């Protein structure tokens, strides 16, 4: 008899059992306050943000626990990887609600995944604090629910800032804007908001839009089309992986708009050689002159050796807000916790934060955005005025003027 298959099966079962033992032991400490976490930790375009968010959460937990925890107990994160996949996210979120019975779930990144998950779990009415998901489709689904709390600005906050900046801060006001947008929910919704809101405020510019597939290895075609249109501003709504390719292709094709403008331009390995003078809208900046932001950046840098991306302070702040909410509630009772969260007010790396009513959302944290520009390898904050550290360079030098 060939024993090999049987031995293999037994070996696999022993390994799986060992892993379960280790992890179940970790997750079910009886003397802790357990917070459910759902993040994309291992998927193509989303894992970077998910892991950065998790780093911020871990920093917050370390700080809270070293100061005695909440309700006299340490905080414990029950972490689930949604892999950026809606079905996985629904499964792990349902598991956190029904099996793990955590009092609150914090996390979620993409609009598509969050929409599908909220739709599936709303029957349980769990308390969720969503970090990402800027699409208003999510807002219209659950924004008015008392159990729904939201960190990231919505589409209209972002596009409102962009339009306000283009309209009132760029001299002369741009007359032609080419928008290259990724063809998913995030890019398409952002584009339609930009077009509609521009129309509503009577903005003077013509807009030409072109979708692209995020993660492509060449964007020369869209660059040539934009070059043919000859815009004042070339506005790209994509993900960090797309931007270096866009900048390189713009240079290779000698495309010289007066300004290249992107979403979330401050990521750790920003390509400074080709990305100088690029401006963009961001929800946070490590260069903010806020004491808590400076402290957070210093701690993050000493731990990880680089500047944080905005997901780290977002998620750090979220755990701190949840901890304060639990303290205010005095228990993990659902209604008490919702009321506790509603009364949270604190200073944070994002500035003073609380849950405010905005648009169609009962509990929104961030509604203010920043406009920044890379100048000489560093970031200059241009907007809003109270955080301004420099002036916009516009029009930017051509590639030839920069040395070819």
């Amino acid at each position: 008899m060939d024993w090999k298959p049987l031995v293999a099966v037994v070996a696999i079962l022993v390994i799986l059992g060992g892993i379960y033992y280790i992890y179940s032991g970790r997750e079910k400490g009886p003397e802790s306050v357990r917070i459910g976490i759902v993040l994309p930790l291992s998927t193509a375009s989303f894992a970077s943000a998910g892991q950065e968010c998790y780093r911020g959460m871990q920093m917050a937990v370390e700080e809270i626990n070293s100061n005695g925890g909440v309700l006299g107990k340490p905080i414990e994160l029950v972490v689930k990887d949604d892999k950026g996949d809606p079905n996985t996210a629904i499964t792990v979120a349902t598991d956190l609600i029904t099996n793990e019975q955590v009092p609150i779930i914090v996390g979620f990144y993409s609009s598509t995944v969050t929409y599908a998950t909220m739709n599936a779990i709303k029957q349980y009415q769990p308390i969720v604090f969503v970090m990402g998901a800027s699409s208003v489709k999510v807002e219209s689904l659950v924004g008015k629910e008392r159990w729904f709390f939201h960190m990231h600005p919505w589409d209209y906050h972002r596009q409102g800032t962009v339009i306000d900046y283009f309209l009132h801060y760029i001299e002369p006001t741009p007359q032609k804007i080419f928008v290259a947008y990724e063809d998913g929910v995030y890019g398409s919704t952002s584009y339609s908001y930009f077009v509609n809101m521009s129309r509503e405020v009577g903005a003077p510019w013509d807009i030409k839009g072109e979708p692209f597939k995020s993660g492509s290895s060449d964007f020369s075609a869209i660059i040539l089309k934009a070059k043919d249109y000859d815009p004042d501003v070339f506005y790209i709504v994509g993900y960090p992986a797309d931007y270096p390719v866009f900048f390189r292709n713009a240079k290779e094709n000698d495309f010289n708009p007066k300004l290249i403008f992107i979403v979330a331009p401050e990521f750790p390995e920003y390509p400074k050689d080709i990305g100088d003078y690029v401006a963009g809208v961001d929800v946070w900046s490590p260069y903010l002159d806020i004491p808590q932001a400076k402290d957070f950046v210093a701690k993050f840098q000493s731990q990880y050796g680089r500047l944080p991306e905005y997901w780290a302070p977002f998620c750090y702040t979220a755990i701190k807000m949840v901890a304060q909410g639990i303290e205010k509630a005095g228990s993990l009772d659902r209604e008490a916790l919702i009321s506790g969260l509603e009364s949270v007010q604190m200073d944070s790396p994002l500035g003073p934060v609380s849950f405010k009513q905005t648009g169609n959302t009962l509990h929104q944290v961030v509604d203010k955005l920043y406009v920044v520009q890379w100048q000489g390898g560093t970031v200059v904050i241009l907007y809003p005025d109270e955080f301004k550290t420099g002036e916009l360079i516009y029009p930017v030098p051509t590639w030839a003027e920069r040395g070819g």
Partner: protein
Amino acid sequence: MNVDLLVQAVANGVLLAGFYALVTLGLNLLFGVLEITNFAHGDLIMMGAYATLWLNRLAGVDPIASIPMVFLILFGVGLAVYLLFFKPILKAPAHNQIALTFGLSVFLQSLALIAWGSDLRTLDIPYVSKTVSIGPVTLGYGRLIAFSIAAAFTLGFFAFLKWSKLGYAVRAVSQDPEAASLLGVNVNRIYALVSGLAAALGGVAGVLVAINLYIHPYVGVELTLKAFSVVILGGMGSYVGMLVASLVLGISESLVGALFPQGSGLAPGVAFAIIVLVLALKPEGLFRR
């Protein structure tokens, strides 16, 4: 669109085709000789990109100068992959081989994620960002370097196949392993050599990815798809077909993207439409091996 931009679009398409050819070469070689469809090929390219990154960051090696080292490193990886994974499944049904290479792909991605994290990384190499103008056409050094390296390795590989003794042996095994074995060719060694070479060529493509794109555990996913498009269109195992298909895809993507409304979103779809059309008319691809 004016004529200058049209010429620029064609030039971009040709440069892109060179890159596609090198991305595909290893995959095509492996299928041509071992008849294994390797879904982990893009992940070997990803490993080449990381090898370039770390050689640059830790030892200050210029990416172009790192090509021989990356070639050798990935040759070793390919050899290990052959001994551990490919050799045991050489005679297995095709669907088992595909399942294995899918698994290998996920394994390599997870390994990269654990080892180097999910941070997006870029290499700042000043000369790569320079450009040169030839008439109405502007060409980036990065793309030109990529095209030149791709052309050199592709032609070098063809010369190796055609004129070296080992190349003869590879071709013989590719055509009929049993007959080659009877003529004294050590088929197992040729398989090992080809696996190493396929990964090494992927590694060189990884150097080009590192200097022209970005470095991330999942950067190979799109490249695997692209390589499969080229191989299927050109005909599995055909090198002439591979070159023609690379040109067809590179130029068509560039022109469709630049000429048609919403063309940048359409371009990948058009590439696949060409594949479907060609396969409907000529199921074995443009060129039969």
